[in-house]
């Protein structure tokens, strides 16, 4: 029964005291949330710390869960806020330089036609391209491509307007395509 329930139903069951419902919910979002955090902070230990904090916030704030909101939206909103706290505390997120786009265009492509890129190399280049993205664009890209969220959901999670989210997503896609072009 728990496997067929929606996230919201599971959360309601957990609020009513069903610990097994939380385990099912946790299993659904465990990998996705951790990957979202890891790809932002790029450090496994820090990602685990933030991951644990996010779930503790969910547990402690379960009574304030609004049933009209989707659970994934609520969960990633909590994660977004925790990430912002992390950036603010660590000052790990400097503003992107004004010539960020030019720098991306100027990146020399080490891949020569003569070199057959392995799958490993392609993944590495994608990882580097992600890291070079501004944080706002990377977050929107990950929420859209990795978490399958709609623009409206991303706007709700990040607290931004839908058009802002759309613009950030477009910029991020362009940079990735440019970075990954052979």
């Amino acid at each position, binding site marked *: 029964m728990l496997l067929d329930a*929606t*996230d919201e139903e599971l959360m309601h069951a*957990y609020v009513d005291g069903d*610990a097994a419902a*939380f*385990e099912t919910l*946790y299993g*659904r*979002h*465990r*990998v*996705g949330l*951790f*990957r979202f955090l*890891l*790809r932002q902070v790029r450090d*496994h230990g820090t*990602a*685990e710390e933030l*991951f*644990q904090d996010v*779930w*503790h916030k969910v*547990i402690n704030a379960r*009574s304030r869960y609004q049933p009209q909101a*989707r*659970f*994934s939206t609520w969960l990633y909103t909590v994660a977004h806020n925790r990430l912002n706290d992390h950036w603010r505390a660590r000052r790990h997120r400097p503003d992107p330089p004004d010539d960020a786009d030019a720098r991306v265009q100027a990146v020399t492509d080490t891949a020569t036609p003569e070199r057959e890129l392995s*799958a490993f190399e*392609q*993944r590495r280049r*994608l*990882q580097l391209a992600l890291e070079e993205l501004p944080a706002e664009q990377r977050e929107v*890209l*990950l929420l*859209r*491509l*990795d*978490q*399958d*969220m*709609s623009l409206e*959901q991303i706007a709700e999670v990040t607290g931004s307007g839908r058009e802002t989210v759309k613009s950030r997503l477009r910029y991020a*896609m362009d940079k*990735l*395509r440019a970075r*990954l072009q052979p």
Partner: protein
Amino acid sequence: MSERHPSPALSAAEADMARRLRALPAGAPSAGVDAAILAASRAPRPARPRPLWIAGFAAAASLVLVVGLVWRMQPTLGQLDTPSAPSPHQPALRDAAPPASPDANAAAAEARRERAAAEPPAPGRMRPTAPPQSTADATPRAQAELEPDARATPPQSTTPVAATAPETPKLPTQVIVTGTRVVGPPSATANVEPARVRPKANAAPPPVVFEEASPMAIEAPPPEPPAPPAPMWEPRDVLVAPAEPAGADAPSNPLLNPEIEAIRQLQRDGRHDLARARLRELIDRHPQWTVPDDLRRLLE
């Protein structure tokens, strides 16, 4: 990630990029983190502290309730605090109260008199009142004891409360009516000098009159200070009996009178031996009896 809420379809470019992203090595939290989170989810929800305003509101409501009750009970307490006679438990309160004006005292006394006149005396009912007492018979010590109360309370000696004076069926009551004054009834509450109501020695047995004080007798005496607080019952006061005369004219036991007269008759007839024998027999049977002087000569 939730299959229950499928998001809008990705464009071709987005789908291709999503496929590449998912091909990246996906990290996962360690088992320790999983265990810690699941353990935290099973922990009981911490009890929320009760807001402080609830305690404050409860205290304020209780205070208002107490003040309201006291305010509503004030008239009742006022009536209870004005008894018709002093109570042994109230001297401190009475002394602490400011003295009332003479007009107010007179009005209060009048009101009490009317109220008592309207109420029939309840038989056997004890009220904490003292009957009027004669100041002429009171000893100086009693006068000294009466003075503080006289200053603090209005004179109440003429109050009809005396009409409901204690009728104590099981206790002897001595009421001496002298003119219009009721003198020296051993009141249940009065604690004046017991000698005041004790008959004089060597006097004839005092007339014991069991009668209730008439309204006229109550109205007659002038205002007197109330009796001082005293215990409800004082046996040494109420159980006063006339002293037994020890003289020849007052045989202690009336039952002995015929035998004594018979012995005297034998003495007058000159039958001294027989009279002496009967006298000795009488003394043997009643050793506590005091032999009269006229008969004592037979024993010499």
